[in-house]
């Protein structure tokens, strides 16, 4: 009996390519230890690009492979492409950062690739076990990445903290899965969906299982009150990794949320949508209010990442196809703008200890036009000012909420985005409206400039002409 068919392999082609690329990077690093130059990042980018191309090539397939454990549908393909974009951008920003921080970790690039692999597994999981394994593959890569700046104790501690809380929350998630398994007898989303779709009385065991599952997810997306780990981890991790962690894993977790809660558990939405509404409101509000009080730009972005998770939760609560499409759009936009913002921060940081004080940004906008303009675009997009992608994403998510009658949620969310304007625009005022502190010379590698300009342009393009992207996502939504 041959349990694997060509269709199976085709369905996971992007993942396979990423793993092969990761292995190639490890080998290359082992052979040319310390003298690999640009080889590792180039290999990684090529691998990711090939994986992305494969995902695009697979566009249009549907259904599951590997005996119903893996989705090979448009939704998975869409996010696989997004993950490769996130991976490529992160890698383009990395060599410079690794150089200035003195990290020479060949495994760095391999781990980015395996993390992308884990995200892809999460996005295409059609079975709770696959979800768990993808999550852990991604998380363990990130634990190491967070702790990879070995010269810096903050980094190691961030890695440890991330690991302890990650493992802790995974255990909750897994216990939730176990209780669901105890009541349903299967881990396949499809079976779970059928179970809930048919007439059922949510037994207490099921409710407890769902609650634990939700706690696990809430930890993973850093929803208040399970958010306390994220600012510290984001702050301590190497900045490129922070950008990566705040975008990719978030997208992966939200795909899983959509697949599990939005689709499979949709018939039981009365059980969880109320709780999720409260979580969303808390997350948006607390994230924003705390972000205002930060003195480090990096921490500010970390807290604002919490707020953005709140906006995204609104999409899950709204629970329509349009809402999921909106979530997908917002995650794409968020990936570009947040990665970009972190990348500019890396260049603008003038002190070695990685403190990223607000004061360091004084007058940098006019001194370094490219950095100033791109950072402004990223921040305006994070604020949600038209014609950026951030604006359209927010509008699209909240319109889905209004459509479903969650008007209070929409009002709270939009007022929150006005609060967000305060701390994002404060950065711009420093960039352009404050006197600079002395001269500064900033190295801007070509790959870096290229990645920044592309991200900023993409944000504007998909902000002004969202139609194409919208169509693609809308078609893909399960």
């Amino acid at each position, binding site marked *: 009996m041959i349990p694997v068919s060509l269709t199976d392999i085709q369905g996971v082609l992007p993942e396979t390519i990423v793993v092969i690329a990761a292995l190639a990077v490890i080998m290359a690093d082992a052979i040319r230890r310390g003298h690999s130059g640009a080889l590792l990042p180039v290999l990684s980018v090529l691998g990711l690009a090939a994986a992305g191309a494969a995902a695009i090539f697979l566009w249009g397939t549907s259904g599951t492979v590997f005996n119903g454990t893996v989705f090979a549908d448009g939704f998975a393909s869409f996010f696989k492409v997004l993950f490769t974009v996130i991976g490529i951008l992160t890698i383009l920003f990395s060599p410079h950062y690794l150089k200035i921080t003195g990290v020479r970790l060949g495994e760095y690039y391999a781990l980015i690739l395996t993390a992308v692999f884990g995200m892809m597994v999460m996005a295409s999981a059609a079975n709770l076990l696959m979800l768990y394994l993808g999550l852990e593959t991604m998380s363990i890569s990130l634990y190491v990445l967070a702790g990879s700046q070995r010269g810096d*104790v903050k980094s*190691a*501690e961030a890695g440890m903290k991330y690991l302890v809380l990650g*493992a802790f929350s995974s*255990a909750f998630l897994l216990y939730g899965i176990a209780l669901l398994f105890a009541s349903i007898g299967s881990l396949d989303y499809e079976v779970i969906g059928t179970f809930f779709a048919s007439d059922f009385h949510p037994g207490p065991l099921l409710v407890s299982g769902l609650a634990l599952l939700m706690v696990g997810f809430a930890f993973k997306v850093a929803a208040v009150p399970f958010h306390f780990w994220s600012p*510290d981890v984001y702050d301590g991790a190497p900045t490129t990794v922070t950008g990566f962690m705040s975008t990719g894993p978030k997208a992966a977790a939200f795909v899983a949320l959509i697949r599990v809660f939005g689709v499979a558990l949709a018939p039981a939405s009365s059980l969880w949508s109320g709780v999720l509404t409260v979580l969303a409101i808390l997350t948006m509000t607390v994230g924003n209010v705390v972000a205002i009080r930060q003195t480090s730009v990096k921490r500010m972005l970390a807290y604002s990442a919490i707020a953005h998770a709140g906006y995204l939760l609104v999409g899950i609560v709204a629970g329509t196809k349009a809402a999921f499409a909106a979530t997908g759009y917002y995650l794409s936009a968020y990936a570009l703008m947040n990665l970009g913002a972190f990348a500019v921060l890396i260049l603008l940081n003038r002190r070695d200890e990685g403190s990223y004080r607000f004061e360091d940004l004084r007058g940098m906008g006019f001194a370094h036009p490219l950095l100033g303009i791109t950072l402004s675009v990223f921040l305006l997009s994070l604020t949600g000012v038209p014609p950026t992608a951030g604006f359209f994403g927010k509008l699209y998510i909240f319109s889905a909420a209004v459509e479903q009658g969650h008007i209070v949620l929409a009002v709270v969310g939009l007022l929150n985005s006005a609060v967000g304007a305060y701390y994002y625009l404060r950065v711009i005022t420093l960039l352009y409206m404050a006197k600079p502190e002395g001269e500064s010379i900033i190295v801007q590698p070509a790959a870096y400039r290229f990645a920044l300009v592309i991200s900023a342009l993409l944000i504007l393009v998909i902000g002004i002409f969202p139609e194409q992207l919208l169509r693609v996502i809308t078609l893909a939504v399960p």
Partner: protein
Amino acid sequence: MQIELTHYLLLAAVLFSIGVMGVLTRKNLIVILMSVELMLNAVNLTFVAVARYTADLTGQVIVFFVMCVAAAEVAVGLAILISIWRHRGTMHIDSVKLLKW
């Protein structure tokens, strides 16, 4: 007295809660890691028990995967611990003061 699924589930719940308590009350990172292992064991016990009482092997297969993940987590966790130890010479969350717990 016949041993039912209920008993196994209750035992697992107790073990899980003990693990949670360990994570929340201890400050020694290595003990916290061990507490997480306790939690995972409780989950495994649940899976195996359900597998037995529904005569479905899926539960046992899942446990196999969870054990692999647990081993990987411990390995990475210990590696990070050692790297913290190099810097600080201690394993307490108290000493992790650069980042507020």
